[in-house]
Structures are given as structure tokens and as C-alpha cells.
């Protein structure tokens, strides 16, 4: 078989690849033999998998569809009563595939035309429109004619929208997150001053999840460094300062 020197990312998807293979086999779309096309397609995908780490899942779905079509052709038809056939609706058929290929090809051809059109339009340069606002009279006439309900409604909804935008902007400002090191220092200072404390009483306000996690990790680090010892106390943790660690204070703070 001919060596494949085409990379899969040169194709726009499984249909594009199929069209390429059909073109290479010099077949009419309407006359494709499913079994031949399937072999070619699967061989192509296999080769690609050897060289590339991943072939997009769409290509694999198409391979599965083709194999299903092929096996259906190879197996003798099972005689079933019409009524017994469950209507899956999605069952792939050769005709369905051909129709899909024909439609895709039509768009692919339209793309060629559009590309030419785009290229020739891109050769025509224009310039941004002149900003004429400085010539406009700067007096905005306040409207003092009659206003109806929908004018008010319009103005109101504009205002609400503006307000929402401003609020949204506020929400995007993220709270400063505490780093593990900061929290270790803070916890260490707290415990060395107090002697003992409990995990939850350490927080001045209601902690959020990331606070809890960072603080808990800081506690684990301090335990590892033998700065504190802990004891489970119902649902809280009793944290006690280890006196002998005082000499190593600086090392901890630097951490």
C-alpha cells in the first residue's frame, strides 16, 4: 500500500478525510463500496495513531460507523418482522453516509468560491471613516416632547442594564488569595502567642473553602515541622504550640 505522507490535521474532519480517500480511489461518491472505503479509512487512522499521539474522537466515531456498516453488509440479513425492529432513528446507513458526503462536498466546493471572493475583496483597501463628532453641534437638545409608557420602559431597562454591567465589573475583582506560606506564618504567630488555639477559632470570620484548605495545609506543614501538636476535639482540632520549637522559630518564618 502507498505510504501515507498526509497528516491528519490537514483534514477538516472525518468527512473531509473520507472525501480525500474516495477521491484517491477515483470513485464516485454515489458508488462507493463501503467495505473498500472502510478498509482504507481504518488503515489511515491506524497509521496516524502510530505517529501521532491522539486522533480526534470524531475520526474514531467515523471509523466505528464505517465498521458497523461494513459488518452489516457482510452478515446475512436476519429475517425479522417489521414490527420487531426497534426504531433507533440514528442507525447509520450507506445512503445516509453518502448523503452526508454529498452535502459536505457541496459546501467544500462553495468554500473554494468564497475563498476567491474573499481574496479579491481583501485586495481592496479602504480607510476608517472620519470621526465627524467634533463637527457636530455639542449641544444635545433635551427632549421635552410627550413621553409615553414605552419610552419610560426603554429608559428604565437601559438603566438597569447599565447598573448590571457596573455590578458585574465589581464581581470580577477577585479576593486576594492567601498563600500557604502566608497562612503558615500567620498560624504560627497566632499559636506561639496564644499557646493553644483551635482550628475554627483561628478564623476571624466565616472562612470560605479555599481558606479552609489553605489553612489546613498550613497546619499539616506545621505539624510536620513539629511546631505544633494537634488533638481531635469533637469536630474541631485543638492546636498546641510545642515549646521546644522556639529556637527554630526563624526557620519556620522564613518558610
Amino acid at each position, binding site marked *: 500500500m502507498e505510504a501515507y505522507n498526509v497528516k491528519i490535521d490537514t483534514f477538516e474532519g472525518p468527512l473531509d478525510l473520507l472525501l480525500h480517500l474516495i477521491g484517491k480511489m477515483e470513485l464516485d461518491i454515489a458508488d462507493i463500496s463501503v467495505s473498500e472505503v472502510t478498509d482504507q479509512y481504518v488503515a489511515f487512522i491506524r497509521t496516524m495513531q502510530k505517529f501521532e499521539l491522539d486522533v480526534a474522537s470524531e475520526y474514531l466515531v467515523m471509523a466505528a460507523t464505517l465498521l458497523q456498516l461494513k459488518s452489516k453488509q457482510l452478515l446475512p440479513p436476519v429475517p425479522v418482522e417489521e414490527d420487531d425492529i426497534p426504531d433507533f432513528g440514528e442507525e447509520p446507513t450507506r445512503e445516509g453516509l453518502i448523503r452526508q458526503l454529498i452535502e459536505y462536498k457541496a459546501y467544500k466546493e462553495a468554500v473554494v468560491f468564497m475563498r476567491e471572493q474573499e481574496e479579491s475583496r481583501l485586495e481592496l483597501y*479602504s480607510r476608517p471613516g472620519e470621526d465627524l463628532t467634533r463637527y457636530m453641534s455639542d449641544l444635545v437638545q433635551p427632549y421635552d416632547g410627550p413621553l409615553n409608557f414605552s419610552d419610560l420602559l426603554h429608559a428604565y431597562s437601559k438603566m438597569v442594564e447599565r447598573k448590571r454591567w457596573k455590578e458585574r465589573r465589581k464581581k470580577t475583582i477577585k479576593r486576594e488569595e492567601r498563600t500557604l506560606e502566608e497562612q503558615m506564618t500567620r498560624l504560627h504567630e497566632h499559636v506561639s502567642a496564644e499557646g493553644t488555639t483551635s482550628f475554627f477559632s483561628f478564623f476571624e470570620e466565616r472562612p470560605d473553602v479555599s481558606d479552609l484548605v489553605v489553612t489546613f495545609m498550613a497546619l499539616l506543614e506545621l505539624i510536620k515541622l513539629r511546631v505544633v501538636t494537634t488533638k481531635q476535639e469533637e469536630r474541631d482540632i485543638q492546636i498546641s504550640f510545642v515549646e521546644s520549637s522556639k529556637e527554630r522559630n526563624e526557620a519556620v518564618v522564613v518558610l
Partner: protein
Amino acid sequence: MKPLLSYETIIESLLFVVGEEGMEVRALADTLDISEAAAREQLSKLEVSFKDSGRPFQLIESAGVYKLVTVPEVSEYIQRYVGTMAEQALSRAAMETLVIIAYKQPVTRADIEEVRGVKVERVIHTLLSKGLIESAGRAKTIGRAKLYQTTEHFLDHFGFNSLDELPPLTFEDELSDEGDLFFGQPSAIMQDRLENE
């Protein structure tokens, strides 16, 4: 009162000022206080005089507005000056998706994915941000999927005046109809289509 300046000259100055935004015939006619037909006539006169004078400008009608642009002959030099192609052509994926939307609009993402056989979520995002497509409400089917359609900027990007200028799609089975007459065998698709109808 007939102005001392020719309409042609005034139109040229207006089109110069509005630049790429262009001007509708109606706006030109209103500004000059002449009929739309007269404005069109002046526009074509201007077009001819540009051509005859050998100046590097031409008029195009794109997305419903007239605008002043350079002639393609000078594009090589403009590109050389700019360095690269100033306005980038679309990627293949973007182009395919855009063409499907153009022909099938208003269309849902799932419809596009069915034709292309790949996911198009990111491409749609790109097209939206480039202003080539816009959302067109929601489908009335189950799930009420978002619908997309092309914009005026789409027309201008390709130099179309309206969507009617898109050439009809050619489907291979329609082309092979003639062949079927000779071979007497209707293709599987034709048969299928007949059955469906």
C-alpha cells in the same frame, strides 16, 4: 439651485470622509437633495471617471453601501508597505463553518456539526468575535438551541451586496442525473429521496 460643484465631486468627497463605513444610496440622495435614481447615475459617472483618470480608486457596492476603495492593482504595493496581509483571511475551519451558516441560516450549532462531522463550538466563537455571524434567537424545537445567521460585515468581508449573490450549491447527485438517464439506473440517493417524498 444647481451647485457650482458637480454632484460627482460632492459624492467623491462624501465617500472619502465616510471611508470604509460607506454610504447608502438613499443617504447620498438625501444629502444632495436629488432622487435615488439620479444619485445612482452620478455614482456610475464617478465610477467611469475614476477608471478613465487612472487614479487608484474605485467604487464598490458592498453590503448595501457604496464605498471608496483602492484598485486591486496597487494591493501588492500596499501589502509590501504593511508587511503582511493586513486583514487576515479566515482559517479553513472558520471558512467551512461560515459557509454552512451562510447557506443554511438561521442554523443551530448541531446542524452545522452534522454537516461538518466535527465540533464547531470554538469556531463559532471566533466567527462571533469577528462579527461575521450573530445570534438569531432560538430554535422552536426541543432544547431551544441558539440560532446563528450572517451579518452585514460578512457580506462586506466577501464583497457581496446581499445573500442572493451566493452561488447555488451543486450536489453531486443532481449532476449525475443526466448520467442516470443514460444508464437507466436511478442512483441510490435518488431512489431514497423518491421514497422519502
